[in-house]
């Protein structure tokens, strides 16, 4: 039976249909869940897509984290359920304390919308299980607050415990340690600024197939 991926949406989320479409194309069932849901039903994994939840008011993700559905997501994460936050979804996960650090305004104070080159930093994450460390891939970024920031103790922890998942080859936004994506110590929660669901024709993964990160995610279990 194919796996069911809960795709969350908050007011202002705008990538939920793209994520659901790709998830279905690669063989899982996507189930759209809105911010008012209080239980995740029987999903096998959860994706928090990108967008501008609650208009990015206050700070990106700051209001969404108090939505009813986030309590269910926190429980799911604590029980080891696989969670992937993309872009605004990553911001929500840091605001909720499910991932360490924060995403600040880009260093150059400009909204960046471009394709960037990334390098896989660990194989020990739900999205990179099938990719070797050092694999390069190209994905679009589309954000104003993508500048990953944390204190130096957290940065050391991320590096020592191998929790950095993806790094920018050429840092576009000022992120510490060139961080584009991280995972938690339990390795069931991943946040990334680039959009794996928007992968275009330039995919440079070694085996050449598209949506490798999401394919890895939907077969985590």
């Amino acid at each position, binding site marked *: 039976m194919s796996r069911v991926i809960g795709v969350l949406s908050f007011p202002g989320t705008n990538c939920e249909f793209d994520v659901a479409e790709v998830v279905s194309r690669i063989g899982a069932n996507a189930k759209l869940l809105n911010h008012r849901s209080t239980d995740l039903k029987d999903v096998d994994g959860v994706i928090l897509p990108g967008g501008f939840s609650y208009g990015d008011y206050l700070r990106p993700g*700051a209001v969404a984290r*108090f939505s009813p559905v986030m309590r269910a997501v926190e429980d799911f994460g604590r029980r080891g359920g696989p969670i992937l936050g993309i872009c605004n979804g990553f911001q929500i996960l840091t605001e909720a304390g499910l991932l360490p650090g924060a995403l600040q305004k880009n260093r150059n104070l400009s909204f960046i919308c471009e394709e960037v080159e990334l390098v896989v930093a660990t194989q020990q994450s739900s999205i990179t299980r099938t990719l070797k460390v050092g694999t390069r891939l190209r994905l679009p970024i589309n954000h104003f607050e993508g500048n990953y920031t944390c204190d130096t103790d957290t940065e050391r922890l991320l590096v020592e415990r191998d929790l950095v998942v993806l790094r920018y080859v050429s840092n576009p936004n000022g992120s510490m340690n060139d961080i584009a994506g991280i995972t938690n110590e339990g390795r069931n929660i991943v946040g990334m600024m680039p959009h794996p669901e928007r992968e275009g024709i330039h995919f440079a993964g070694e085996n050449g197939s598209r949506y490798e990160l999401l394919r890895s995610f939907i077969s985590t279990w």
Partner: protein
Amino acid sequence: MRFQGVVLVQPKEGIADPEGSTIYDAAGALGYSGVVGVRAGRSFIVDVDANDEEAARRTIMRLGEELLTNPVIQRFSVLSVDVA
């Protein structure tokens, strides 16, 4: 009683503040030689119904900690609490 509190949220020491740096650079470009630093913050004006000023202040402090601030990168101070 109704009280009004003013909360200032600002980047924590040691956290890069690209907005403040940009304003600082612009001040320099405009010829303000005496301006030696700018940090960009944000203020919130919060109206609260409470029995007394202490209770209003407690509510505002809790709001500051739980919602108005991301403690990873920001700190806040309550600048004032007055009868509205």
